[in-house]
């Protein structure tokens, strides 16, 4: 896939006050679609993920994972000059996104109402743990907090075990939905000429990810409890041991079961009796699952995946980071690519955008160094001269 795909958001400018995982992932997705994303930090308050230095690089691995396709500038938001500069940049942008706790952007005169009054065309978007207002507005939040409040953690787990800690992925789920919400705001602005204020709750995003389960449970009026890996609609279903790890599967139809049994019979495995129908398998799911478990334990995951797929049975090996990087399908589709590390002569594996447009996948640009584009952005976006930029720097507004 050598050619770049169409950049849908070319010409869109995002002034990006997000940091950590959720907001940064959202802004990166917009950058992957072609938007100019200008990440605003300061020397005293860089994105905290930069400082997760677990290798001899300035950039942490995680920082690079969620800050591709951006430019980085530094503005001292404690200075009046810095705040005014940020407002000028906002006026020249289509989106201002942030993930500060409620009150921080307002303190700088950059809350939703402030910006929309000054620049009605803007899409202003804030991501917080629980929203800008309401009884939980002061709650500081991370992925684990969103997960707990959302109900997602309580729904997943062993039947007699505790709830489950979804961690970084809950940030990223919120980030993907946040990016979508911003895009919807941009579409609205394009069609009406009016911006939009998006007050996004990461906890509600967690609930959205299990919306189907919440709806199911709400019919019954009580919490359904945790049920492990079994899908109550399908038997056999769950996670089964293979020779080299685990594999998930679900037999969804009698035809899939028939094909699977016929295939295993060719290998000498006796045909199980009385399990031909879905209702029979659900009634005696222990027997159906014991039959599958016995067949899989001598296979490796790749072989089992192929066998089950050939029978039409949905299946998937349980994979870790190493498995994903080595996978032939993802390699063929170019999901992972290497980008240069700016501070060394090495390269690093990163994950490209999770879409292919017209057969081509976007090639990410490396995550920027702190303030790497300050001068270039001020010159190109605001038309500032070198002397004007120097004056700002001397005043401390760019530190």
């Amino acid at each position: 896939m050598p050619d770049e795909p169409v950049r849908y958001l070319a010409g869109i400018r995002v002034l990006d006050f997000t940091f950590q995982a959720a907001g940064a992932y959202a802004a990166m997705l917009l950058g992957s679609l072609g938007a100019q994303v200008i990440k605003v930090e300061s020397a005293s308050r860089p994105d905290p993920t930069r400082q997760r230095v677990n290798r001899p690089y300035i950039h942490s691995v995680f920082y690079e994972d969620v800050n591709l396709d951006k430019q980085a500038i530094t503005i001292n938001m404690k200075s009046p000059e810095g705040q005014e500069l940020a407002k000028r940049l906002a006026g020249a942008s289509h989106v201002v996104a942030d993930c500060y706790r409620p009150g921080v952007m307002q303190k700088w005169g950059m809350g939703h109402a402030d910006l929309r009054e000054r620049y009605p065309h803007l899409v202003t978007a804030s991501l917080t743990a629980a929203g800008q207002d309401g009884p939980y507005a002061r709650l500081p939040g991370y992925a684990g907090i969103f997960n707990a409040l959302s109900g997602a953690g309580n729904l997943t787990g062993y039947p007699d075990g505790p709830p489950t800690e979804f961690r970084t992925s809950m940030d990223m789920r919120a980030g993907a939905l946040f990016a979508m919400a911003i895009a919807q705001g941009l579409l609205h602005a394009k069609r009406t000429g009016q911006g939009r204020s998006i007050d996004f709750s990461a906890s509600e995003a967690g609930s959205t990810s299990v919306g189907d389960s919440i709806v199911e449970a709400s019919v019954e009026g009580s919490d359904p409890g945790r049920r492990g890996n079994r899908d109550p609609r399908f038997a056999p279903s769950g996670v089964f041991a293979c020779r080299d790890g685990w594999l998930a599967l679900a037999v969804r139809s009698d035809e899939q079961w028939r094909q699977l049994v016929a295939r295993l019979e060719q290998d000498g495995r006796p045909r199980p009796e009385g399990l031909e129908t879905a209702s029979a398998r659900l009634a005696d799911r222990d027997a159906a699952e014991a039959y599958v478990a016995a067949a899989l334990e001598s296979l490796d995951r790749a072989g089992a995946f192929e066998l089950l797929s050939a029978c039409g049975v949905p299946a998937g090996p349980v994979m870790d980071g190493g498995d994903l990087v080595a996978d032939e399908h993802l390699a063929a589709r170019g999901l992972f690519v290497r980008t240069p590390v700016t501070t060394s002569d090495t390269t690093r594996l990163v994950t490209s955008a999770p879409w292919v447009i017209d057969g081509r996948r976007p090639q990410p640009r490396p995550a920027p160094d702190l303030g790497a584009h300050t001068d270039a952005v001020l010159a190109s976006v605001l038309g500032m001269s070198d002397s004007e930029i120097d004056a700002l720097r001397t005043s401390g507004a760019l530190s």
Partner: protein
Amino acid sequence: MAEQSNGGAVRVLELAQEVTGPFVGRIFALSGADVVKVESLPDGDPMRAQDPAGSGASAVYEYLNAGKRSVGIDWTVADAPTQLERLWSWADLVVVDDAFLAHPPVRRLVDSEGGPPVTTVTPFGLEGPYAGRPATSSTVFAMAGETIMLPGGLGYELFPDEPPLLARGAMADTDAASIAALVSTAALIHGGEGHVNDVARWEAEASLNRWIASHFDDSGWRESRATRAYSYGGLTACADGYVMIQIATESQWEAFVRMMGEPDWARHPDYDTQAGRTAAGGEIGEHIRAWAGGLDKATIFALGIEHGVPVAPFREVPEVLACPQFNERGFFVDHPSAGPGQPQRLPTLPYVDAGTPLPAAPGLGEHTHALLDGRGSAAS
């Protein structure tokens, strides 16, 4: 509300069933779009028959398809391609899943030049060695790198010999819908004809766990449930359930100590730094468990909000539905035709000003005549 400059709503043609594609349509419907859902006759979306409550009605179908119009197409009749082409030419955006790609007339239009932007949502993408293989939300989730990390912490301590965990319900399918809706919306912003957005559900979910790939590449580290635990805090049992305690900064630790009533143990000099607390995580965890065990979820949460500490109760579904914060923000709305076997409240989208109250989900083929046979405004 997403409206065209001429006053018309964005027109979305949904050729999809079960969760991912319909959730994309749901996002657009909640944003004000006119969403026409094509269902294959005679049975329609299999989700209609899914019956978690044993009531004969599908609450999840209702949730995913509220506010849409339904057109039934019988793919065995000669007129089906013509019907499809009429709907296709009406649409600003088409969303297609693997079930509908299996119908040759659909595939032909996806592969044709020009026309509205098309977003395909399939398990593994349109191309590649696994393209066409079947999957469920759970099998995609398992492949995407998170199952191997679940459960970490207390869950793994208690059940080290059980298989790793799948997420409940259709989490991965729903996650993929976020990405598909994002790229679809971007295509509408851009305009232009003939673009095909290939969204693989597996890649969308793996993208959420991207750090495990880069960490493996960087250091050879393979994160798993055995290694996935907070040094202290995390999932913690209390008097009536569980709470999450996630202390990330020095100021949060200080506030947490105040929240616990300034116990003497917390002033141990070794605990003055994050590094010191991490090293002593086991003993700090013991103290926290002893403290939390004497309090209920509501008390701990109220203390957390008062002191600005990241703690939260693990909520059961009825508690989520009753959440004062969610309800004040209008996250849940009343179901327009709630009855036996139907949910009373439905989630909207996780941002204020997002939710458009939606009418009930359509009957199978309820709008076929209006859109295809009569003078329905949409297809005329």
